[in-house]
């Protein structure tokens, strides 16, 4: 009856990572009632990609928070009544975890090279609509399974330079 939100753990309706053409790289919807089939999901993703040029917007009664880097677009979707800051914190966790896992090379190529780990991270962040972990460090640590690899093990000199440059750039940006 009232305009209040039912207290529930199920706060996230979906998470998505799209590429620079708006194609799905990894998405997950947790509420089967919003999209009856994959067709509607993809249609929604197109809308999302075309419309979400700002950090937050509202599409089809869903609040979408968004962040991007180079050729990757990250979205977290929740009910339009949901506390936007909670969605934002889930998005931050998603983005920062991916960034940590990819050692700040947040771009499509590296993401696909590490798709298995990214899938695991996706699964660690949200389980069936319940935010499972919101600390990106914890998520990264839970999936940082390739212990035997040292960071610069199989990188070429240019890659090392690249990531050094990246890190410099990041520290400057902060």
């Amino acid at each position, binding site marked *: 009856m009232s305009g209040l939100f039912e207290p529930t753990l199920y706060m996230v309706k979906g998470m998505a990572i799209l590429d620079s053409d708006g194609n799905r790289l990894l998405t997950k919807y947790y509420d089967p009632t919003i999209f009856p089939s994959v067709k509607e999901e993809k249609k929604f993703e197109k809308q999302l990609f075309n419309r979400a040029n700002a950090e937050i917007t509202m599409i089809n009664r869903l609040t979408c928070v968004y962040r991007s880097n180079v050729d990757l677009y990250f979205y977290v979707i929740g009910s339009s009544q949901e506390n936007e800051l*909670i969605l934002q914190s889930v998005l931050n966790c998603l983005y920062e975890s991916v960034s940590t896992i990819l050692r700040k090379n947040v*771009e499509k*190529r590296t993401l696909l090279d590490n798709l298995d780990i990214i899938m695991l991270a996706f699964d660690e962040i949200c389980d069936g609509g319940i935010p499972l972990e919101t600390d990106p460090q914890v998520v990264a640590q839970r999936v940082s399974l390739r212990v035997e690899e040292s960071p610069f093990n199989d990188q070429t000199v240019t890659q090392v330079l690249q990531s050094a440059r990246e890190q410099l750039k990041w520290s400057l940006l902060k």
Partner: protein
Amino acid sequence: MLISVHGMKKDEEHGGSNPYQCSDKTSVLQEARVFNETPVNVKRSTHVLTKILYLLNQGETLGTKEATDVFFAMTKLFQSNDIILRRLVYLGIKELCSVAEDTIIVTSSLTKDMTGREDQYRASAIRALCRITDASMLQAVERYMKQAMVDRTSGVSSAALVSCRHIAQHSPDVVKRWVAEVQEAVHSDNVMVQYHGLGMLYQIRKSDKLAVTKMVSKLISSGMRSPYAICLLIRIVAKLIAEEESSAGERSHLMEFLESMLRHKSEMVVYEAANAVVALSAATTTTTTTTTSRDLVTAISVLQLFLSSPKPTLRFAAVRTLGKVAMTQPAAVTACNLDLENLLQDVNRSIATLAITTLLKTGSEGSIDRLMRSIAAFLNDISDEFKIVVVEALRSLALQYPRKQALLMGQLADMLRNEGGLAYKEAIASTIITIIEDNPDAKEKGLDHLCEFIEDCEHTTLAVRILHLLGKEGPRTSRPARYIRFIYNRVILENAAVRAAAVSVLARFGAQCPDLLPNILVLLQRCMLDTEDEVRDRSTYYHAVLSTRDPAIIARCILNPPMYSLSSLERALLSYLSSDTTKAFDASCVPAAPPPAASASLSSAASSITAAISGPEDVTSAVPALQQEKRSVSMHDKYAERLAAIPAFAGLGPLFKSSAPVELTESETEYVVRCVKHTFLGHIILQFDCTNTLNDQLLEDVSVVVEEDGSNWQILQTLPCASLPYSCPGTCYVLLAIPEDIMSTTGTFTACLKFQVRDCDPITGEPETEDGYGDDYTLEDIEISVSDHVSAAQRSNFAAAWEELGPGSELEDTFALTSLSSLAEAVTQVTNFLGMQPCDRSEKVPDGKNSHTLYLAGTYRGGQSVLVRAKLALSDGVAMQLTVRSTDPAVSEVIASAVG
């Protein structure tokens, strides 16, 4: 820049950007054979498994056989101890468990992992395991689940709690046994564990108000660390306050908590608390005021601070919530107007749109002019969806400040001329139409704007709709002749659908304006030469009707044509064809089409956003309004089909009317029974939808025994429901013969549910005893009133219909409705009581009037049309002069005697 150049170069080197793109299902499934190799080829298997997961994620679906094959192949991978591979297998299990068969076989492997020592496995294994188990299997792992919930590793604990929450969806009873562990988790130091624990604890407790109250007060005093948990707690507290079952002392304690959370250090919590206070104040304005205005002011000033935050999300959240307040208490938000106006320049257009819609609600009459100017500049760079939101806001503004309607109408007309899609134009047109309907003074101006618009309108549906409106309103204006030119232009310039509509509209002008009739006849004659059949047919028909110059025929054929429900008409015709066709088809028993829902003009695109702003209660109220129309037609069909399928009810004739369901029990009692009354020409069927809410009982041979006080009614037949298991609704029927004497066709029935009870196992639902024992359960009384014999009918021109029926069967009486205090109340009461349809928008009582005339139209059970004119005057209570006309004097008498 550097990064993107680098990225491109890399793409070139690899010759393609996505290594997974080209993989197709068949070849990947082939590759999955690698899973069977011993020893496990970790590298290849990981790659192939990732590919499968990628494909599934892309929306590829596997058949049951394919899924089962992959699933079984995947289980071989448990032989490897590679951590990544194992974790991917868990993911695979979760993805495939809904499609594949016999997934239960991995239970032991997963149980081993979840109880093992490797932390990297345990949490994920628990989550995978809980996806494939059912309630009965859970008992086997119950001990481990309990341990896991209180595990020292936060990940394991969270995984167990979250899985537990998923299990609660389908088997709530099992998890109730774990309450002690869940409670311990609530006091965890870990942010997420505390949050998951609270969510789970609330889930277990939520049906028990007292337990929730106790839990909340304990948590409030002990304090929580996790901002997520606090947000959840705030929602629980807000719900408790809203339910208004707690004492005043408890409530003020809870409000104090919300108030204190407005000063929390986490923005997330502060926002959640502000949102809760605001929602509570909106929800409780009608009843007792729980939130004091001081709380609301504090919450709003917190939100006001957020409006100037550098974080867009925070600005968005704040302006959305303020928009919600503005719906109910615009005055409270006025203080934020300046900040909101600054947001109009926000780079995030979603925020700007929310800001302007809020401003339109809170703005005073004086600020409208200024707002209109900023809207004009603003509209160019937002999408249609948001433009519609602005239009909707203009609509409510227009209704609020009638004096500004001229200005708003001008703005809307400008918007109508600019670029935009159909949905947008439709929203503008329907806003103008609303204004026209609301304010007779604005009518001519509005019609002019619309006429001008259809001169250059590319949307057929919209043009037809506006033409229809012209036909309805135009003839009643001071100078109807001026619209003829616009309408006839359509006949010359437009496509066939618009031409046909224009012809019908011309006919309406001809029917109502005698001085225009000769000219109209000439125009119709020209239309007879049209290239399109439909246009020629219509013009020929209308020309013939109008040429008779007989007011009765004109009224029946043009002003108030019969409006049958098409699906019912089709059914009636089919059954006529299969029966005796020597007699003429009797159309009187075909139900009339239900009148369209009043507010259904809200375009769906717009409602999505307005609903989002206005909160869930409006979502539920807006959506049914849209669906009402469709539903009542299809409900009639559904009932008719269902009843026709029962042999005992064959030969009753077509279904005339079905009532809305009436609850015969309190909600949340042992048995829930609802009654629907189906009226036929000479019979009434009482349909009882029964639900058994006791999970340890199986009811058999369920019937409802009804008895009437008098002896007019005859109970012909009772159809029992054979068995009524827990929570599966069942239906039983009672067939009544309607008394011959038309004056005694109302009555009150006592009702009693009779059944045989068999005790059964609550979990499996299997009965435990062979024989049951008889029992009964008293239900509330059933009323059959006049409205059950009358269905609402539409008359687009009441006066014409009234004259057509003539004073022959007229009955008049005067009543004093002392219990009513307002005209609006009287209008609703009388309308509902008689079950008829208000015409000519007479259901709307203008503000500040002391008298009002209500026009009602309906059809009586036998197909007789009934019209009612009720003159209402406000004195001590409401005085009503009721005049009834009908095709049958007896029916007039029934209706007139019904009131009183």
